């Protein structure tokens, strides 16, 4: 199983390198392949980190433009490299902005709930979770989002963020405890 995943990663990395060579040779449109391949996870990360669809879109756009401009400098995995650009963009935004409210674009998400009451509950939980996430320091929020929203393993997170598995476990644990303390009275 591990070998298969590694092979898939290596295959994608090779495909990315081929696309990068095409872009560097002057085929600008080939960059769209990389955008469509990686925009969804990057958008989700930016959206969960910032809580704002508009800001997430801006960060995604700026990150891909930056990635295009520095494409010749890519060494190793493109997806990890571009993830770091997006993650740093989110952290920079969080440093500079104190948010007053959070919102989600309902149109982009399909509803799997049968009744209006369930949908209302879900919207309320979503808003409360956003508010609770907003109280966390950026490093804890980032770790929680990567683990629980993006479903990444600790090893993958450590690889992407350049830190240790132990430190990341600590951040996720602290984030969970803070979130439970904030939300359990209403939802437990």
């Amino acid at each position, binding site marked *: 199983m591990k070998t298969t995943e590694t092979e898939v990663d290596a295959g994608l990395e090779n495909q990315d390198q081929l696309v990068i060579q095409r*872009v*560097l040779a002057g085929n*600008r*449109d080939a*960059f*769209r392949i990389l*955008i*469509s391949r990686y*925009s*969804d996870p990057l*958008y*989700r990360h930016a*959206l969960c980190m910032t809580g704002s*669809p508009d800001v997430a*879109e801006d960060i*995604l*756009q700026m990150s891909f*433009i930056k990635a*295009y*401009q*520095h494409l*010749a*400098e890519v060494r190793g995995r493109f997806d990890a490299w571009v993830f770091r650009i997006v993650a740093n963009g989110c952290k920079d935004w*969080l440093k500079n902005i*104190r*948010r*007053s409210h959070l919102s989600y*674009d309902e149109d*982009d*998400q*399909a509803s*799997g709930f049968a009744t209006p009451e369930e949908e209302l509950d*879900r919207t309320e*939980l*979503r808003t409360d*979770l956003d*508010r609770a996430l*907003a*109280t966390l*320091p950026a490093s*804890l929020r980032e770790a929680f989002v990567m683990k*629980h*929203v*993006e479903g990444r393993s*600790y090893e993958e997170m450590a690889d992407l963020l350049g830190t240790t598995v132990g*430190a990341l*476990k*600590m951040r*996720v*644990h*602290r984030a*969970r*405890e*803070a*979130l*439970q303390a904030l*939300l*359990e009275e209403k*939802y*437990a």
Partner: protein
Amino acid sequence: MFDDFNSESGVRNDGRARDRQRDDARNLFEREVPLGQTGETSLAIAVHAWLDGELPESVLRRGDSARDVDFWNRLGEETSARRHMRTPTHIQDRIMEALPQHAPQLITPWFQRELVLTPASAVAIGSALVAVTAAATAAFMGVIR
């Protein structure tokens, strides 16, 4: 960054004390020390292990953590829903339109660039070195005398 739900409400009368308390809380909050050693852990280690995929849910159901399991299952529904969110379709076009028209090029710092030495530049560099050495020697001799 540290924020709270009342961050927009302005500074209280005891703002300075509150700031100090908040700084202390932030320092404690961000300190990366192993959980369970400080005695401050509110969530059972077993719950973390379950959330990390290291324990089956049935083990926690038998203990005192059933309430925690329900809470995290409910939260898990929301986080799973977020996992399926897609980028709005217009974004890809917007990014492509905003890309520079020229192909990306490698920008090499001057100290990493290849040095091309022509006969003329070699003579110029040599002459400059001789002149600098002569000037330095003259200055040194002047100081000695």
